[in-house]
């Protein structure tokens, strides 16, 4: 007898593509959230496969805090032009200028929380009814409770105690006017799966994921990139370090790791030996034990 077997990466890929197609079929105006990070790069690749040989039938949306790594923006623009996708940019600076958001003060000021305002405004302006994101359940404990199809009320809020049960492969995207969904096709992927998939598919990544020399500041156990957006304490010194990033968020709240890993295979080895999670490099998650749940309830990614 012939054995019909798929390895686990192909099963996860098929599952994610199923969810992406289901989103395109069930919603009128979906959008794919694109941050320039590895998970959203995998999402774009999967979306291309899902509709090939047609183009991705929805726009990519980037919420630009103005504090992005320049390498990410360069990568984003190149990718978008290569695949012929439509890119919409929601700007946090615009939200601040319009008085919709107020810049945080103090030494650890970040625009992370402000993104939620811009994001929800962008959803409303464009009447998006489903936003595909690359969040994974293994990232963070509040995310472990997410559904593939996650309902948001008319204020963009998440009600984690009262979620729809999700059975078999039957996704319920029914909603009332003004409500929307967040959709997470990579729910069942782990950080390792993402890296292995990137290696298997030979995907390009922004250069900051690989080891490079950078001017950095050490603060509260984190290595932050020196930049015009980072306010320094008097005693803090800028040092040249050999680092790479495990996740890519804002320059002000994403920590680098000391690393010599300059190839995908190096990175995979490094992660396999790593004893901390990737969210450990994010100061935005460390503000309190329920920082992610609190932000998600308000409408964060």
């Amino acid at each position, binding site marked *: 007898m012939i*054995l*019909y*077997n*798929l*390895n*686990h*990466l192909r099963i996860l*890929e*098929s599952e994610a*593509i*199923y969810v992406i*197609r*289901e989103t*395109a*079929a069930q919603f009128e105006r979906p959008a794919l959230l694109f941050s320039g990070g590895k998970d959203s790069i995998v999402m774009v690749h999967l979306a*291309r*496969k*899902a*509709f*090939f*040989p*047609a*183009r991705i039938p929805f726009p990519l949306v980037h919420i630009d805090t103005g504090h992005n790594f320049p390498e990410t923006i360069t990568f984003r623009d190149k990718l978008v032009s290569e695949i012929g996708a439509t890119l919409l940019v929601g700007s946090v600076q615009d939200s601040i200028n319009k008085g919709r958001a107020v810049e945080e003060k103090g030494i650890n000021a970040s625009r992370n929380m402000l993104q939620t305002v811009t994001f929800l405004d962008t959803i409303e302006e464009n009447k998006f009814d489903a936003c595909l994101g690359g969040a994974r359940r293994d990232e*963070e*404990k*509040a*995310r*472990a*409770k997410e559904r593939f199809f996650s309902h948001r009320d008319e204020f963009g809020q998440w009600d984690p*105690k009262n*979620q*729809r*049960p999700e*059975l*078999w492969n*039957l*996704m*319920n995207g*029914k*909603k*009332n006017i003004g409500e929307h969904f967040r959709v997470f096709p990579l*729910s*069942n992927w*782990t950080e*390792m799966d993402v890296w*292995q998939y990137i*290696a*298997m598919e030979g995907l390009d990544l922004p250069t900051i994921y690989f080891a490079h020399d950078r001017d950095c500041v050490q603060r509260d156990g984190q290595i932050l990139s020196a930049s015009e957006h980072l306010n320094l304490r008097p005693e803090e010194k800028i040092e040249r370090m050999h680092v790479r990033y495990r996740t890519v968020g804002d320059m002000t709240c994403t920590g680098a790791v000391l690393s010599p890993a300059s190839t995908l*295979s190096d990175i*995979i*080895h490094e992660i*396999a030996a*790593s*004893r*901390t*999670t990737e969210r*450990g490099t994010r100061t935005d998650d460390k503000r309190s*034990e*329920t920082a992610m*749940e609190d932000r998600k309830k308000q409408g964060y990614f």
Partner: protein
Amino acid sequence: MDIRDLDNYHNMELLRFTTAGSVDDGKSTLIGRLLYDSKSIFEDQLEAVERTSKLKGFEHVDLALLTDGLKAEREQGITIDVAYRYFATPKRKFIIADTPGHIQYTRNMVTGASTANLALILVDARKGILEQTNRHSFIASLLQIPHIIVCINKMDLVDYSQEVFDRTVSEYKKLSSRLDVKDVHFIPISALKGDNVVDKSEKMPWYQGSTLMYLLENIHISSDENHIDCRFPVQYVIRPQATEFHDFRGYAGRIASGVFKPGDTVKILPSGFTSRIKSILPLHALNITDTIEEAFSPMSVTMTLDTDVDISRGDMIVRENNNPTVSQDIDMMICWMSEKPMMANGKYAVKHTSKDARCIIKEIRYKVDINSLHRLENDKNIGMNDIARIQIRTTLPLFFDSYRKNRITGSIILIDEATNETVGAGMII
């Protein structure tokens, strides 16, 4: 073997399992141990849990804090929702759907069980088979989870007694003879001390079987998928608006069951037209000429056909001589998931494969007492967490198989048309 070796990683299988049991059964301890021993708990996670355990004044590290992610869960010390956990060994990647075992959470157990290949059922060796063991086993049987591992836990507290183990096994066999379960394994373990979890216990030389981890890594799952009955629900029609692919019409979807090959004569439901598969685009390459020779479940693919036929989402591509049932009258077991009771003669929206329809509840036949497994013929009040046998009539014919034969084409959900909530999980008889 090394998990970091890419070739090896490409040969890993995926096993989804569900765990059922209450905190007292040592479920969290067991999951914690599987995660810990497979190095899937990271230092920052462990530190956070240790910190919280200390603040709460616990004597030992409470690994349940790892899975209970929501504020409300940690405040109340209970698991409210299904928590998904991931770990991997060089052989397999595992997805655990960890569900609370308490009676009112039948709906969560059903949810976790719906995608599982295996159920891990925990029994406290001191207490033997309890009502909740009946409940968990019944749900595993109802949801047709192909494999069950019964872990008889806390063997350290019964002096690793073979007699206790044997008695519990025969008690369980009495229970399972009334259920529809195929592949059941029994393991005496101590999750706390680690006996027979990853390493073989030295305390129980009388036990000749495998450890839990060995079984999880080696249990035969490749024949769990149905590779006989060809069912391809069309999920999305791909028509590129580009001159290069002017005449291209691709039917996208995930194969529910069976094996499809280019050249196969297929029938399209509901139209009944026949055609032949021209090509199957795999997802391995973004290249239109790179087609594959066969496609099987659970692959997501895009098919093209020889002839132009009218096909849209909700249609199903099948083989000519092996058809699903096509009907508007459908008998099913249903698990009710809403606080609003089922309305006799009520109307609901339904989702089945890629098809949307509406239905009316025609008849409530009986309710099942999931603790005693008795049929309650006179109780027609179906509330939250109840399981019942009902008949519905749908607005459109559905193309279905019995759930026993096909978990994809045999499953259906009911949706409240006012709130849009998923209120019922149906298994077609």
